[in-house]
């Protein structure tokens, strides 16, 4: 096989076969399908990338959002605020020269004076309030029975010092003091 003509018979192109439209069309359709798959994959991967970028952005935004400060106490517990309201309170300031009497509000009716006298812990104050109630019953309402009752309670709270006669004693109170002194004198005399 040294003659080049031998190669001509081997390497010369064969006669073109009959056209096969079925094979050619099927082959082209196969390439089209393969390309279409690649196009769809490419679009899907791009959509996935875009979705991923949005997801990462959303997560970053959620992670970096401002956090509200935590409440100091239990929100279920009602919050109590202490409000300081200035109140004017009369205060007596004793001085060396002239002692100033404590200004206290005096009851204006016999019933109010008797009520305060019943609630008073201090016997002297209770005696004074019963004395006021007796005066009111006597002077304002001429209620001798209640006035007498209040005078007797006042003298009982006042003790022995309360029986001393005073210039401002009403006639009923003076009469009561005299009666009580007589009873005490008679009782002492009888005991002796």
């Amino acid at each position: 096989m040294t003659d080049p003509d031998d190669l001509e018979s081997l390497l010369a192109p064969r006669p073109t076969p009959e056209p096969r439209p079925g094979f050619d069309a099927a082959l082209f359709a196969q390439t089209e399908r393969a390309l279409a798959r690649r196009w769809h994959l490419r679009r899907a991967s791009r959509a996935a990338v875009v979705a991923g970028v949005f997801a990462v952005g959303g997560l970053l935004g959620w992670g970096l959002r401002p956090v509200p400060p935590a409440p100091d106490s239990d929100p279920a517990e009602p919050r109590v605020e202490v409000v300081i309201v200035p109140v004017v309170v009369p205060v007596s300031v004793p001085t060396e020269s002239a002692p100033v009497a404590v200004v206290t509000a005096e009851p204006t009716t016999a019933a109010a004076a008797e009520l305060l006298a019943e609630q008073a812990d201090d016997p002297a104050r209770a005696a004074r309030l019963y004395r006021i109630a007796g005066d009111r019953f006597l002077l304002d309402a001429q209620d001798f029975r209640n006035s007498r009752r209040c005078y007797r309670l006042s003298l009982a709270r006042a003790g022995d010092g309360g029986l001393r006669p005073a210039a401002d004693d009403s006639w009923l109170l003076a009469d009561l003091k005299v009666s009580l002194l007589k009873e005490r004198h008679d009782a002492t005399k009888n005991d002796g």
Partner: protein
Amino acid sequence: MSDGGRAWRERAVRDAVLAGDAAAWRGWYDDHAPALAAYVRWRCGGLPDLADDVLQETWLVAVRRLRAFDPAAGPFAAWLAGIAANAVRNALRSRRRKPTRPLTDAPEPGSDPTAGATAERVAAALAALPAHYEAVLRAKYLDRRTVDEIAAEQGVSPQGVSPKGIESLLGRARQAFREAFEADHD
């Protein structure tokens, strides 16, 4: 068309096809399918079933790797021919590895019964040749170019090859083919 113009056009078509332009693919396929089919038939020694398998494999590989095609490195037809040459080698290896498959096609009635075996030896010998020997044999026997035409085409390159150089190259290519052909027979 200059090589720069060819590269610019093929890059535009490639990008259009990759972007999903079905019409661009249709036109590109139709432009190259006849030449590629003729080349594959020649490389397969005229074996129709082998040529069909190689042609199908060539186009599918081309579609898969279209993004890798660089028009600046060479024309699309040459890129397809490279894929086809590899597909022929793979197909021949596969045919010879399978013991149940006959090495030759069944001869048609009235034809030479040894034609199939000869065609397969031609295909194997061409597959065994270096690329530049295969290219000059293709220009001579498939494209039916004269030595002067081949030299003129090669002269486009900076190296520039004379007709005498082509004649010498063609002689060496023929000799290499004969040796491969005989070796396959042994």
